[in-house]
């Protein structure tokens, strides 16, 4: 018993002997598979050898290559004579083992002729270093022989390491599915409670952990709280195909249930003013909360930088943004009275080159800025129109007109996208109600940004992540927060800079000590900022383009695994963790939660006719 993982008792017969015709080293060796035994890739095996002084050394390893060939024949065409029954030849069946652990650490080679056995039970936990993990082990999937793969939570929660990175071709590698499976495993396996208990209660238990998922594709993740009607059928099929004794959730000792304690956030539909705030979702209407940032909050919390995802390209522009952000911050600080608008007294509208429509003039003079486009008009006035086109000196700060125009032009470029998200016409109660609340709400928050344009997505992700980061900076590493973000290459590209990339870098480099864990995913790790990928303690690879698999980012995969990465099926991943020097191939169960609307089990497990009868009564 290791952590919450139940490992079966050892019952392994010998399956082969270490070959003497290939080099035998402490880290890699071949063995001849015995007649009647079957060995496949990813099998975990153990070999025991005896030193001359009588002490035993055990080698635990992973099969990464298997081959068969005719033995005793010299020519390739001899296969015809063998099949014709006139040339005696035996079939040699051999397997190569990558050693994952040597116990005790005497790095001698095994002896040719030593017996090889399947690693099971306690030996399996030695092979996968589960004995070192103790209570921190949680299931990360099923091995080829149906035994659970233990992952070390201390390498997830930031204690010894943190962050998970998942790479794979979109749609095939099912990166998001595996990330959700890991979250489900972390939340329901009890590992958080066990680790907290072992740490003397310094860490909060299950209730303390939270996850934030950004939904970037369709409305796939808006049904995570609903049971999946296909799971039973799919799991029964998988169990039969893989010849497993029990269904996979049971083997993993995880409940087959959807996520509980969830909240779903979505941006509001565009065009609404006043009270008509509805989430911009098409398939799910109930249970989804729209999120909005108030204009005053936008200024007070310095969100302007996240409007410009490409500001790092120009030093001057970055300077202007910083300056304006500061001005807006002071403006927000100076606001008095209720509301979410900004009251300005230095805007002589008649001097603006273009007079905005529907401006609200305050009772005591001044203008109430209630929309994002009015804010842009005000900034245009302050930078370009005031003083006969010279602008307000304090705002301009000797910057060239061209830079100022570039600034306002970019703002106008994103105006359409951000106007529904940043509003100054709400009451404070409304603002509080629609403010995205990721850390004090549910255990799992899904932020739907798939309907947003690129700049708006960047803005939302940047603002929310910074908020999480600042919150954790204030409160420390209690309550681990998992941030699931797909398409990392878009938010933190290797070659370009952006404010969001800065936040992600902060999270990657400092986040683990603050209890923020990034579960990042992307098609190609080679296009993501190197420091983000290299900070991930646990790396997962699904199916890869073979050219991508040869990039340096995948050097942690042995060559044989890189070749195999091109043929992995959905539901199969290669998982690398610090405790085990070689990656391990796992499969994981079909989601118990709906990942599309048509998977939602709205009949509660009953037949359609029975539910229909209830309605007729």
């Amino acid at each position, binding site marked *: 018993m290791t952590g919450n993982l139940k490992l079966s008792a050892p019952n392994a017969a010998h399956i082969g002997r270490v070959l003497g015709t290939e080099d035998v080293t402490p880290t890699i060796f071949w063995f001849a598979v015995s007649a009647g035994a079957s060995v496949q890739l990813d099998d975990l095996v153990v070999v025991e050898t005896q030193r001359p002084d009588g002490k035993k050394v055990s080698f635990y390893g992973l099969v990464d290559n298997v081959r068969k060939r005719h033995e005793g024949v010299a020519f390739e065409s001899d296969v015809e004579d063998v099949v014709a*029954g006139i040339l005696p030849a035996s079939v040699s069946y051999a397997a190569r083992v990558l050693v994952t652990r040597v116990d005790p650490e005497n790095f001698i080679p095994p002896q040719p002729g030593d017996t090889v056995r399947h690693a099971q039970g306690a030996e399996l936990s030695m092979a996968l270093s589960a004995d070192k993990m103790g209570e921190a082990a949680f299931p990360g999937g099923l091995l080829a022989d149906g035994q659970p793969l233990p992952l070390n939570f201390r390498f997830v929660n930031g204690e010894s390491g943190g962050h998970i990175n998942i790479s794979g071709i979109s749609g095939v590698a099912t990166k998001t599915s595996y990330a959700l499976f890991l979250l489900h495993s972390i939340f329901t396996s009890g590992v958080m409670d066990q680790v907290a208990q072992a740490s003397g209660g310094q860490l909060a238990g299950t209730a303390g952990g939270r996850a934030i998922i950004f939904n970037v594709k369709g409305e796939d993740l808006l049904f995570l709280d609903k049971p999946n009607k296909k799971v039973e059928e799919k799991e029964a099929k998988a169990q039969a195909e893989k010849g497993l004794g029990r269904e996979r959730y049971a083997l993993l000792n995880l409940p087959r249930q959807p996520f509980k304690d969830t909240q779903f956030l979505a941006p509001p539909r565009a065009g609404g003013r006043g009270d008509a705030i509805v989430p911009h979702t098409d398939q799910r209407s109930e249970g989804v909360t729209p999120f909005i940032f108030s204009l005053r909050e936008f200024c007070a919390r310095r969100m302007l930088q996240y409007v410009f995802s490409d500001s790092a390209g120009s030093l001057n522009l970055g300077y202007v943004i910083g300056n304006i952000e500061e001005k807006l911050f002071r403006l927000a600080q100076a606001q008095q009275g209720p509301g979410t608008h900004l009251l300005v007294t230095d805007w002589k509208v008649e001097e603006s080159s273009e007079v905005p429509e529907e401006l609200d003039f305050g009772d005591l003079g001044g203008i109430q800025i209630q929309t994002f486009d009015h804010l842009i008009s005000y900034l245009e006035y302050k930078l370009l129109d005031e003083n006969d086109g010279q602008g307000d000196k304090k705002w301009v700060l000797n910057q060239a007109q061209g830079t100022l125009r570039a600034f306002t032009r970019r703002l106008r470029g994103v105006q359409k996208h951000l106007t529904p998200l940043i509003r100054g016409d709400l009451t404070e109660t409304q603002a509080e109600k629609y403010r995205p609340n990721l850390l004090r709400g549910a255990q799992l928050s899904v932020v739907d940004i798939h309907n947003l344009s690129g700049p708006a997505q960047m803005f939302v992700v940047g603002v929310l992540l910074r908020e999480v980061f600042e919150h954790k900076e204030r409160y420390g590493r209690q309550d681990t927060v998992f941030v699931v973000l797909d398409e990392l290459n878009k938010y933190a590209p290797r070659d370009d800079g952006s404010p969001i990339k800065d936040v992600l870098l902060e999270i990657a480099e400092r986040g683990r000590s603050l209890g923020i864990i990034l579960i990042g995913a992307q098609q190609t790790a080679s296009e993501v900022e190197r420091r983000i990928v290299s900070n991930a303690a646990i790396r997962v690879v699904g199916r890869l383009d073979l050219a991508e698999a040869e990039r340096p980012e995948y050097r942690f995969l042995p060559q044989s695994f890189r070749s195999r990465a091109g043929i992995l099926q959905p539901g199969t991943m290669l998982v690398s963790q610090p405790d085990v020097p070689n990656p391990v191939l796992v499969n994981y169960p079909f989601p118990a939660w709906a990942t599309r609307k048509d998977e939602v089990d709205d009949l509660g497990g009953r037949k359609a006719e029975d539910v229909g009868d209830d309605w007729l009564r």
Partner: protein
Amino acid sequence: MRIRLDPWPIDTQDGQLTLEPFKGLVFNVESDDWRAIPTRGIPKRVTKVLVVDGKPRMEARLLLEDDAGNMSLAGFGAFVVGAVSLCPHGSRQAELVDVKARRVLAYSGDTLLEPTRLSPRNPHTGVLEYAPHAYAGAHVEGARSAVQSLMLNAERDFSRDLASEMPLDEADENALPETLVLQDGPVRVGEAGRAVIGYVKTLHTDYLGADRIGLLAQLGCGERTPILRFTVGDSGEADYRGREQRFTWYVRLCDAPFYQHPLAGVMRLEMHAPEDTDFVPRAVIDAANLSGALLTRLGSQLHKDARAPQNLIPTAALEHAMSRAMGSQELVTRRIRTHLARELREGVLA
């Protein structure tokens, strides 16, 4: 003058063709009509063919010195006898049978020696044990001859044990047994009555004479000559009474390439002949009839075996397995050196 190539490589002991005239009498027993007979194919009732061969090897020449200071020659040698079991219809995979090395300490004299046991330093690498075998005489190659002789006897016994009984009835259509043994070389004394067919790869002796040998060049693939009979060791003298009688016939395994001599693909077969009978038993005729089909099937190809087609595919595999069973000559020699060094207490040599 035409030059033709003998097909066998120059490093074999002899060429395939010598054609020393046989001095004795050779009789037509199947037919006086001396012409090619086509193969009849392999009857279904024959389900097992065992190809038997043996291999000797000398591993060290020794000089023995007894307590009285008398010297004698001896040798460490090894031999293997084995077989390939196959179905002539190809219904199962061919298998090696009983390919195990036996080791001998061959010495001349009457002294009784204990078996010599050569233990390795590494217990994983097996033990060599040489069983003592005394031979008569003091010839310098006596030990080699003794090992060769042991091997031949073992091969003969093995063939005899594996083969079915050979009916000698003239008319029984079902006389051919289910199991046949193909033995490398001529049949031996002591195998009479068993279904053993000896195959002789070389044509060192001409049993046919000028009037009959021309047919060999005309044989097509799988065709054979009629069966003949002769007496082993017949010297051609009028009062000679030979030891045993043999049936023999020739089979062509494949067409000879144009640059080789025209008998290049021809092989001679032998079976025991009963004494004092003037007919050929039905089973022998059946064996001869199937031999063309069987041997063309088992014949090897030149690019794979320098002695093709006569060195049969199973035989070559068997030779390979037998060499492997005896182990590396170099390692054995090293083991012997180490053993003797230890015995003489002069330290261990590599």
